[in-house]
């Protein structure tokens, strides 16, 4: 079974040379720490920066230079700043190659819910609705089940949707799953996790096709 860093580490393998990547808040943010350093990747943040670098050294924080998680950041050579309309032009116009974000629920048809629990938690969708409606390559990073132990990979989302039929891949603490027209296709098992355990934790249709390899990190 993977921890949050493990999930981020596995997702980092999906990041290819030359990709512009948008990372959501939470586990996705950790992905940047595990991207191979022999490939060239640029991170975009929807609040208006391309070419993000690591956090600043203490004392060098600049209140005017933050990421979408409101964290102080630095920029690398080749970076640029721009306004919010231009930023979402990059996203909507499919110039960003890969979007990695968290989710509360994903359905077997690729629907995603991650912005609202009616009557309880209403933080807003931020840029998530634009991201999932526009990107062609969307990876969800999340735990396979919620705190109550219920599956987050469902036949149908129960929470208000963020986007419809958009998720292409899911990496959880248990598995790597591809969203196909026929349902969740199990691609890889987390170290030490059995197919049965994954079946048990997946409410939606799980397609197990032959031998399912254990993932390598």
């Amino acid at each position, binding site marked *: 079974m993977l921890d949050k860093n493990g999930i981020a580490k596995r997702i980092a393998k999906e990041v290819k040379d030359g990709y512009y990547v948008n990372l959501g808040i939470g586990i996705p943010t950790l992905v940047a720490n595990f991207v191979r350093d022999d490939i060239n990747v640029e991170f975009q943040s929807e609040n208006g920066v391309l070419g993000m670098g690591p956090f600043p050294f203490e004392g060098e924080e600049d*209140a005017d230079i933050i990421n979408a998680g409101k964290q102080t950041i630095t920029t690398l050579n080749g970076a640029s700043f721009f306004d919010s309309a231009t930023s979402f032009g990059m996203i909507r116009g499919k110039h960003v190659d890969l979007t990695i974000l968290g989710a509360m629920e994903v359905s077997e048809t690729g629907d995603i819910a991650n912005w609202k629990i009616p009557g309880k938690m209403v933080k807003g969708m931020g840029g998530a609705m634009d991201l999932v409606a526009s990107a062609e390559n969307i990876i969800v990073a999340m735990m396979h089940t919620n705190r109550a132990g219920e599956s987050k990979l469902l036949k149908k989302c129960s929470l208000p949707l963020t986007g419809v039929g958009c998720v292409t891949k899911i990496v959880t603490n248990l598995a790597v799953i591809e969203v196909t027209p026929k349902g969740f296709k199990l691609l890889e098992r987390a170290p030490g996790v059995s197919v049965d355990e994954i079946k048990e934790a997946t409410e939606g249709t799980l397609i197990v096709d032959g031998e399912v390899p254990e993932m390598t990190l």
Partner: protein
Amino acid sequence: MISKKVADVKEAMKGIQDGMTFMLGGFGLCGIPENAITELVSSNIKDITCISNNAGVDDFGLGLLLHKHQIKKMISSYVGENEEFERQMLSGELEVELTPQGTLAEKCRAAQAGFPAFYTPAGYGTEVAEGKETREFNGKMYVLEEAFKADFAFVKAWKGDEAGNLIFKGTARNFNPCMCGAATITVAEVEELVPAGELDPNQIHIPGIFVQRIFQGENYEKRIEQRTVRPRN
């Protein structure tokens, strides 16, 4: 040169009235018009609608207006980080219209640039699209979104000149340029106000034609929400 310079925040805010709709720049607490917000708080203006990506935190930014119950309605994309907001929203005291962030930016830009409406894929198939026209283009579904209408836009820039030209800094740019010229009156506050001619015409982010009033801001706190740092080895 048409001068947009006004003496201070008080003169810049002339004409604000109860019930008006305001746009406010900023992302989180980054690049927010601190002087305008302070003046709105002390003006006791009420029943206002605020178009702003976020709603501040409990004791800073728009949170200050929320605490005094001056805001009737918020149009935002993300309103976490603010307990009072969540309380007012869940209790029904505060009207909230949540809008995808890119749609929010473009609804401002549409108002600025004279587009009545535009089609965006964001929100299709979700409750955001309920009651809105949807339409297919090239096999993909889009939602029709209309331009905002606002009385005042309050923006914050890094440098500005008397002609109203603005230059923003880093990610404090965010929604500020999109809101310039998107309301009847755009009020810009700047960290450094210089005479016309001192800014390079090639490096202006927002030409002065989109700004009606500009003033030298003061006492910027520029609060950091998430101070993240790394150790020096």
